[in-house]
């Protein structure tokens, strides 16, 4: 199934200050896209627009059969129902994990399918165990989030998002809050999902991961896409001077 994503002329500003300026982006099925850029460049905002946590001012986001389109000053109207169907297509992983602290790991993973999709608890638990096995947490299903390490929590959060069978996974700096020794176990999962053919869009500062795993790298600066290239070309011969400067500061 194709998860063709296209973003056209996306604009957003906070209190008059533009955060996204006319962003255009095409993502093909099974691609792993890494978005990088200096802090404040709008990369998190772009990601949050793609699952409706942030409303954009104008532009268009198409994701499979769902289209979100807004013009300057248009009303929010019936947006809510379309946002929800958008979110069912998209899984989101947060920098701070955001596991539900009052639920055990397996409850964290099964809650949404039971509540949202009406899946029966047994089926949900079976599927959850499979996914938790996949992310290496098969022996932690009855632990509460506070009893897990950061890396374990983030892997649990990935399993929780996968549980809804999304066509696209969005990661908002998934390893930034992690102890360096725990970063790899999370990236490993994302590599595995890429091999399975899942479409993924990752905002990160992990340059090695970007270079090794990404199909394409998007470089954002001051709300604009200034570079869109394969990792080889991006890291060796970036066109834009800002991208060049950014890469130099990281190497």
């Amino acid at each position, binding site marked *: 199934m194709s998860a063709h994503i296209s973003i056209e002329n996306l604009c957003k500003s906070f209190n008059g200050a533009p955060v996204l300026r006319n962003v255009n982006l095409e993502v093909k099925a099974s691609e792993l896209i890494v978005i990088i850029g200096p802090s404040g460049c709008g990369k998190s905002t772009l990601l949050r627009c793609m*699952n*409706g*946590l942030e409303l954009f001012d104008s532009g268009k986001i198409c994701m499979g059969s769902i289209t979100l389109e807004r013009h300057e000053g248009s009303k929010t109207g019936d947006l809510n129902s379309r946002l*929800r169907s958008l*979110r*069912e297509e*998209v*899984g*989101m992983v*947060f920098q*701070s994990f*955001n*596991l*539900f*602290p*009052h*639920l*055990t790991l*397996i409850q964290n993973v099964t*809650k*949404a399918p039971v*509540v*949202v*999709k009406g899946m029966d608890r047994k089926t949900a638990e079976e599927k959850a165990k499979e996914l938790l096995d996949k992310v290496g947490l098969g*022996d*932690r*299903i*009855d*632990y*509460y989030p*506070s*009893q897990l390490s950061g890396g374990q929590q983030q892997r649990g*959060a990935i399993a*929780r*998002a996968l549980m*809804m069978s999304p066509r696209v996974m969005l990661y908002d700096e998934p390893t930034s809050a992690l102890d360096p020794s725990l970063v790899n176990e999370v990236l490993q999962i994302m590599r595995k999902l890429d091999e399975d053919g899942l479409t993924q869009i990752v905002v990160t500062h992990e340059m090695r991961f970007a270079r090794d795993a990404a199909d394409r790298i998007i470089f954002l600066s001051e709300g604009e896409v200034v570079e869109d290239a394969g990792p080889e070309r991006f890291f060796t011969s970036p066109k834009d001077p800002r991208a060049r400067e950014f890469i130099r500061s990281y190497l």
Partner: protein
Amino acid sequence: MRLNDSHKARLLFLALAAFLSAQYISASAGGELRWGGDSEGGEPYVFPSPRNPREIVGFEVDLAGLLGRELDRRAVFVQNQWDGLVAGLERGNYDIVLNGLEVTEDRRRRVNFSIPYYATYNQISVRAGTDSINSIADLKGRTVGVLQNTPAQRLLEGEPGTKVRAYPGQINAYDDLANGRLDAVVMDWPIAIYCHKHYPGLKFVGRPSDLVQYAAAVRKEDTQLLGQLNDALRKLIASGELRRIYEKWGIWNSETEKLFSGDGASQAALEDYQESATRRLTLRERLGQYISYLPVLLVQGAPMTLTISTLAMALAVGLGLVLALMNLYGPRPLAWMARAYIEVMRGTPLLIQLYLIFYGLPNAGIRLSPLLAAVAGLGLNYAAYEAENYRAGIQAIPRGQMEAALSLGMTRAQALRHIILPQSLRLVIPPVTNDFIALFKDSSIVSVITMVELTKVYGQLASSNYDYIGIGILTAGIYFLLGLPFIKLARWAENHFAFDKRVPAPARRRWLGVGAKPAMD
């Protein structure tokens, strides 16, 4: 007899009254006869003149004037809450009490009474259409209003099967009789005839019974003053001047006539009785008395206090949650309404809210029983506080929780129900417990709408025994002990829902019976 027009929020004036009476505390001057009474009481005793509210009138005002003349001292009126007239006398606020104070056995332990200056009886009032009530005996199974701490209250509470409601003021009682909340009212005849002028739909039934006598009260040590008062009263009775006062006020009756023509023998018997009733209790007798009060407090007071508090808290906790959710997530008009409710309910006195619910709503055709009115008043008031507790609890949950839930496809309502509220509820347990304890004690306020609960029982015992300290400590102890289990329960709930301290998780899960495979195998 108990004079107290508390049609308005009477207790609000308590502080003012106390302040005013404090102004009068000074050693009683030789040239003055300072007499205590409650001008908030009704006609015809001591009350502000309808023509000039700053002037106090009434048959007892006239009587005080005559007594002053006889004693060659200027009569000076001292305002004091009727409840505390005897206590005020002991504290030296005034020299005598002259305000429809019935001669009763328990009062004699504290003060000396003059010879009675007036006699009357308990008058039964019913609605004009009532034919089935003609005597005290007919009140069985009926709901009857009386004034607090009067012989009528004691008399009727001794009648099995009669439901007695004690009111702080007579107007409230006659109001409730007129609007159907009561089947009958029993009060001293002079109050009854004056009140009936305002209630054309009521009528008197029954024959004069249960004599009550009013007398002036003086401190035990003021024997000289007592003698002077008795001499003066005898003179006023003999001269017919006292009778003329009563005739002027329209309360001359055959009982008083009999009293005034009474033979010396019965008077001597009375004085003899007075002698015997002045004995002080020993410590042992007093302790025995306290133990005998315990069942009264526990049986008559505590269950009602518990019932009112728990029902009101259930209402407050439920309604508070609805208000908080409306306020935080409702569309603008609903959010605004919730906000307005919260601000008004916590910004206005609970006491006034209770009065409005109990005495005001019947005008709109809504007549709540005292218990319902008490639960509604406390519950509606505390709901405002609980709503704010919930709001704090909900807003304390990090934004990421809501975002994670939304990103999983949950609606806002689902996210609230499954993710946000379960976390917030644990956070609000301590402040809600706090409020419950506060409500538990605040429930004592509902005695103003005739509910008899723990504090009311205390008040009745304390005033009839003139012992506010011993019984007060006893009652406070009961409150404390009754509250303890709830505090324990709240602490338990807090720990039970403390997800960040749950170890070991696997054991807990099996205990909950969810049935999972043990971890680490």
